[in-house]
């Protein structure tokens, strides 16, 4: 039933999904592109941890920061090398490019590392629990909540208190007009991809933390989660993405508790029924956001 442990688990899942959805929608808002290579950034983050564990012994925190950095760099590079050259082409060209980048990164992991799962180093804290109000709560879940809240607050400061952040919000609203104010398109789009990579990198730490392993296809599940959460929250709103992530995580956790044992294997099917109901009543998501604007190009 609804216990403290359940609440923390649900919030932990929701926090992770909120970061995932935000990372996807921050690029979608400007380019109108559902970046199918987004899941691979999580894979890159996971493999970075694995590769770093093979070298000189580093504190886990340092490895985690470096892994997130690699995800940021990869995201920025995909924009610079793959998306920028086709940005003024059709949306179809952009979508195909995102599939190509996704396939390329997956195959690179397959060929360079291995198709088999590789163990990633995790701090002992990830497997420990703390007793709160007489209930055992995993530290990993508490860390996920705290990290997400801190990251979201930092993003709020960036997006509301800095000129570049305001420019990023404006670009999601009306990219053409943003450029008309002298704000360089490349700068804003690069920043969006870098933030997207940062969020994917942080999520990667907690995603691979569940199984302590990484595979070339690990990005598929978080990509789907990010997409569904943004659809729930609203594709044109950053706040909507965060809300969608929390709604997805909390509802998914609730279904797990409320469904009878025999139906638990259909948990995802029930989740998607709820998503369909939300879309039926709120086709534009829980938060509508601004009017649709033309994509950057």
């Amino acid at each position, binding site marked *: 039933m609804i216990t403290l442990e359940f609440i923390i688990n649900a919030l932990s899942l929701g926090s992770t999904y909120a970061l995932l959805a935000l990372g996807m929608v921050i690029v979608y808002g400007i380019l109108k592109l559902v970046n199918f290579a987004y899941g691979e950034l999580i894979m890159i983050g996971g493999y970075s941890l694995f590769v770093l564990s093979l070298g000189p012994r580093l504190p886990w925190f340092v490895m985690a920061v470096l892994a997130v950095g690699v995800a940021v760099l990869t995201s920025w590079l995909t924009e610079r090398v793959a998306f920028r050259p086709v940005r003024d082409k059709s949306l179809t060209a952009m979508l195909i490019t995102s599939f190509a980048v996704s396939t390329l990164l997956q195959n690179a992991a397959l060929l360079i590392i291995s198709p088999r799962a590789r163990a990633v180093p995790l701090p002992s804290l990830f497997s420990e629990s703390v007793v709160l109000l007489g209930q055992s709560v995993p530290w990993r879940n508490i860390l996920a909540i705290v990290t997400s809240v801190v990251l979201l607050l930092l993003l709020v400061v960036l997006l509301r208190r800095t000129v570049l952040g305001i420019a990023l919000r404006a670009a999601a609203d009306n990219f053409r007009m943003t450029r008309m*104010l002298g704000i360089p398109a490349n700068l804003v789009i690069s920043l969006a991809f870098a933030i997207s990579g940062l969020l994917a990198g942080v999520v990667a730490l907690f995603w691979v933390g569940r199984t302590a392993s990484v595979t070339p296809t690990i990005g598929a599940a978080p990509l789907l989660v990010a997409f569904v959460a943004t659809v729930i929250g609203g594709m044109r709103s950053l706040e909507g993405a965060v809300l969608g992530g929390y709604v997805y995580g909390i509802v998914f956790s609730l279904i797990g508790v409320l469904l009878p044992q025999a139906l638990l294997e259909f948990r995802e099917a029930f989740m998607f029924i709820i998503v369909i109901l939300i879309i039926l009543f709120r086709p534009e998501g829980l938060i509508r956001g*601004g009017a649709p604007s033309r994509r950057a190009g």
Partner: protein
Amino acid sequence: MLTVQNMSVRYGAIAAIRDVSLSVKQGELVALIGVNGAGKTTTLSTIAGALRPFQGSITLDGEPIQGRQPEYITRRGIALVPEGREIFGSLSVAENLTLGGFVRRNRGERERDIQEMVELFPILGERMRQAGGTLSGGEQQQLAIARALMSHPKLLMLDEPSLGLSPVLVDQIFELIGRLHGRGVTILLVEQNVERTLDLVDRAYLLHTGTVEVEGTPAHIREFVDVESVYLGERGRKA
């Protein structure tokens, strides 16, 4: 200051404007007038870099700027207040103004400029924290003009600033344009309100089906053009 020579713009195979030439000197208030579809907005959008000319040249203080990116052209000193205002509805008035001053790197300068805009547009001072999308049409137009002025442009281009506003607000907007001109701001104005525009400007160009038909002082334009017919969407030239 601004010189456009033989500029043509095409949408696919269709020519939107053909061989348009015009100039704006420092401190002048110049208008482009004409019926819907004459090519006025296309001309402004091309100067601002949103469209690429098929042929012809655009120079600002002698520097060719045709085909350059919009952000470059804004940094060189041209600011456009587009038709429909296009303010950022989810951003506050203060944030809209801050972005208008993006090309001014110094934060202190930006803050001073915002204060100056508040003095020029007092209503914006009362709405600083309000989302741009919640302002009235007239307030939005003032915000759009203030946002453009934040970049200290050499040339301010206004596209249909009175469009969709009530008669009282139209009066206010024309009064504001006159005030800006009085302060030495160089303005290229696109308007359908021909009579009011000709009362205000130094010179005007009449566009018809994508070409300049008549240019000159308001008196000269009135001599050749039946102003009422421009309202009615007719050719405009007197017999």
